């Protein structure tokens, strides 16, 4: 096979492989991703058994008894809140008023947090009004 043709074949093979792999990537990302929601969205349209990535602010007055954290998460700019029960590592910065991200599953009236999925955002050192 003349060298130019060889090179072109190599190019097409690698492109095809790349496209296939990218396709697999794209497909799995859409099929396995968890929806990101806010408390008001979750309260309105949360489906039992499905996983959601909940983002919002911690409402004051949470309880942390015996390894289970029971707290409410409210909208970033709003009052609608949902209750969350979470058993797992609680990050150091966790505090009322802090923004958190937690993966939850609806079970009855309460949302159960997936173990170790609670992330508390580092308190805003780069806030707009600084």
């Amino acid at each position, binding site marked *: 096979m003349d060298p130019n043709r060889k090179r072109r074949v190599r190019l097409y093979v690698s492109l095809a492989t790349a496209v296939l792999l990218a396709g697999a990537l794209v497909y799995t990302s859409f099929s396995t991703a968890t929806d990101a929601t806010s408390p008001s969205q979750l309260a309105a349209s949360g489906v039992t058994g499905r996983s959601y990535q909940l983002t919002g602010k911690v409402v004051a007055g949470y309880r942390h008894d015996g390894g289970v954290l029971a707290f409410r998460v409210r909208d970033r700019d709003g009052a609608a809140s949902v209750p969350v029960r979470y058993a797992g590592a609680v990050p150091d910065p966790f505090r009322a008023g802090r923004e958190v991200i937690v993966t939850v599953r609806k079970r009855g009236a309460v949302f159960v947090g997936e173990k170790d999925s609670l992330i508390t955002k580092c308190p805003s*050192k780069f806030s707009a009004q600084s």
Partner: protein
Amino acid sequence: MLNLGRAALTLALSVAAYGIAASLYGARSGRREWVESGRRAVYALAAVLTVAVAVLEAAFLRSDFSFRLVGGHSSTTTPTFYRAAAMWSSQEGSLLLWVWLLSLWSSLVLFLTRRRLREVAPYATAVLLGFAAFFAGLAVFLANPFQLADPVPAEGAGLQPLLRHPSMMIHPPMLYSGYTLFTVPFAFAVGALIARRLDAEWIRATRRFALAAWLVLGVGILIGARWSWSELGWGGYWAWDPVENASLMPWLTGTAFLHSIMMQEKRGMMKAWNASLVLATGVLAIMGTFLVRSGILESIHAFGASTLGLPFLVLITLLIFGSGFLVWSRRTGLGPEGHLESLLSREAMFVLNNLVLVGLCFVIFWGTFFPLISEAVTGQKASVGPPWFNRYTVPLALVLVLLSGLGPAIAWRRATARNLRHSLRGPLAAGGVAAAGLALAGVATRPLALAMFAAAAFTAGVVVQELWRGVRARRAVSRESPPAALVALVRRNRRRYGGYLVHLGMAVIFVGVAASSSFQRVHDVRLSPGQHARVGGYDVRYVRATSALSNEKVTLGAILDVSKEGRHVATLDPTRGYFRAVDARLGPVGTYFEGEATSEVGLRAGARRDIWTAVQPDIGAMQPLIDRLDRRFPLATGRSQGLLLAALAARYEAQPPPAVFRLIVSPLVEWIWLGGAIAGLGGLIALWPAPTFARRRAPAAAKVRRLRRQLSRA
């Protein structure tokens, strides 16, 4: 001094703007004096920004609260080291740090290349000053660090407790240095494309800057990971958080570039690819800087929505479209001069390694920006987590390690198949033995980890073999002792052996990552003093509770005794520090438990495994006592407050409620840092300037002179 700082910033912006104009004018008109003036504008910029930084630092060090920034991020009780570092713990200060570092590196680079790259340098200067003007402009108009506090507070808010750790303070400057250093090859690539001078001279200059940037950014990333493991209470070193990923992406494309640039140097190949790669690296570096402060992605680091998001977005869009247009418009000059002679060559390995690295970058990019992508496609924001990332990055990393072993064993241009088979026999045996041995030891339960260990053994085998053969080849000629031969060999072939060392370091890192990810044992347990728990073959006993008091925090913790088969292994003392909240409504004792809390991890590092523990005292159980003390003595301050806290602490030590412990036994974590040190050393060796052929002393110079004579006689 506030006005001096303001003046310096404004002057910096003006100088940058002038420099852009002067450099471009000088480049178009051919008038050298304007080009030089433009270059000197960069020096002047560095000087002026140094003044600005000095003014701000001085304000922090002497706790001048007339500076709003100082009052917001430091206090008279903050230790001096953290006061100095508090400067960049804010948006405004970090922008200033970024542009200052940019001006320093730009000055250095332009000084080193002042007599070279004559057509390219003016445009590169303009690009670098363009970035500087952007950041200075942001600082002057949107996030000015020199704002007056009105009224001037008596005491500052203090530094965020989470940042009070040496690593945390070194981490931002290192990362910013990495990001700003990557703008240098970007700028020179833009200049080279504009001037149509993408040649050997450009390669030689750019490679060095890219290597420096790669080294610094890599170290910065590892420092961040180490800090996360040894200081944060979650017990991990990497979370595929968007901001972590943002720092990794330019590092990956930078690694690809460092390899593929050699292909252009040797075969005149991949010019368009290299130009695109180095431009992409620069864009990703800016994107990394942007992600931390934009709030467009949910991240532990994303510091809320800020006003800077839009300007950055505009800049990044400009960079992407500008770069794309530039490469496309110069495409005729970017055709390959040569081709791959053989698939069995180091060049071919580099092509493969580039594909893997860019593939890795794409995976990470896709996963990081997926919330935005999915929102654009389906209208619903969705995110992918660590399992998705691991599924794709682990196999790619495996291939990467294999390639990093194969590459050094193959010759340039065209390897002899028989010699290659011979060269690979030893390392393949090493890999095989490692695989078999580990499989027998029970590692086969995690096939991917086993494969990684085998691949790393293979790579280590190749590197050791290469060093051995190199020393032997040298001694055949020079009759030196083995150590002297090794030193001379490496000195004379810094890029080659520095590179091999980096490969070895990376293999060690991946061994550490594979082992600690696959064979980690985690146990969350609630213990009272005297109780035991088992984790990873170790027995952990809660001996007693501890407490400590200081000016700024109450510390409650525990002493844990770790033993294995009856033998004492370690004593760990995890603690949790509770800082006082800035809220006058809270009682004298309760105020400490409504503020920030940080964990001090109990860590016993070891060559074979780390034993990690964090404690979460049950404050809820202490709450009745806290409330009682607050009610009895609501106005206690100073000494009396201290006494109350001492009483609380004493009660905690005497009758501690059960505390929740997270216990982790993680094998080979320290190998990650060790591998990083090896890779860093390799990078330094590769970076270290070898004397040019002209200046070299004998016998290398003699070798080159001989070569020249031979060639000129031909």
